């Protein structure tokens, strides 16, 4: 390997490491609640992203984590923004209608 190629490769590696270390841009994701169901959750969620819980129902619901790390009250027809912090898999449900469930998977 020539010195030039070595230098170029090192450059790529450094750039790659720098990219990985950079925090991803925080994104907003909406989870719609309609007809007594939580809609699809974002496939890729990172700490720092915002989940917007949008309750389109005529009933009051909640988005409540099983581990109690969040408990969002959602009166009929409201939306509430929530920044996700903890990394991991968080099961949630509606405390008024516990048959309504879902899971947030949060990557670093």
């Amino acid at each position, binding site marked *: 390997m020539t010195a030039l190629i070595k230098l170029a490769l090192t450059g790529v590696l450094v750039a790659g490491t720098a990219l990985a270390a950079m925090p991803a841009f925080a994104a907003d994701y909406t989870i719609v609640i309609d007809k007594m169901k939580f809609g699809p959750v974002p496939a890729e969620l990172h700490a720092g992203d915002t989940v917007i819980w949008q309750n389109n129902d005529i009933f009051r619901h909640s988005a409540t984590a099983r581990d109690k790390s969040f408990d969002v009250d959602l009166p009929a027809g409201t939306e509430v923004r929530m920044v996700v912090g903890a990394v991991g898999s968080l099961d949630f449900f509606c405390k008024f209608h*516990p048959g309504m469930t879902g899971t947030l998977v949060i990557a670093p």
Partner: protein
Amino acid sequence: MIRTTVLAALLAFGMAGVGAAADAPTDPQIAHIAYTAGQIDVVAAEQAIKKSTNADIIAFATLMAADHKAVNDQALALVTKLGVTPEDNPTSQALSQAAADKLAELDKLDGAAFDKAYIANEVAYHATVNGALSSVLIPSAQNAEFKELLKTGLTLFTEHQHHAEMVAAKFQ
């Protein structure tokens, strides 16, 4: 006895429906039955909120009052939009009569005896209404939007039934 009467009245539609589709309840009748069923649970909840001092019972009753009122408001808005006038019928009358009797019966009870009887009736009542919705009312509904609202109602009332069963278990 009372429950049997209501069930019989509700099922009469279904039974007749098997042989002759013309005897299935119409949308105006279904609207009346569904609205009556919801209103009954709101009134029962108001009685419980007034009489009970148990936190679980009061929380459950508050939810019933809010959810059923929300569905009924939506149902009313929908029938108005569709130009449907809810039509009184024997099933609605049987439901109302049974509810009035139950209300009077529960009124004589107090404390834990009331709580236990109220929540037991909520379990039975939601089971009856859900049975009627899934076997007769939803299959008979003609208007698509109306049918959709009834389905959401069934999902909601099934939640209520499970919730009531959980609360009732604490009073065994």
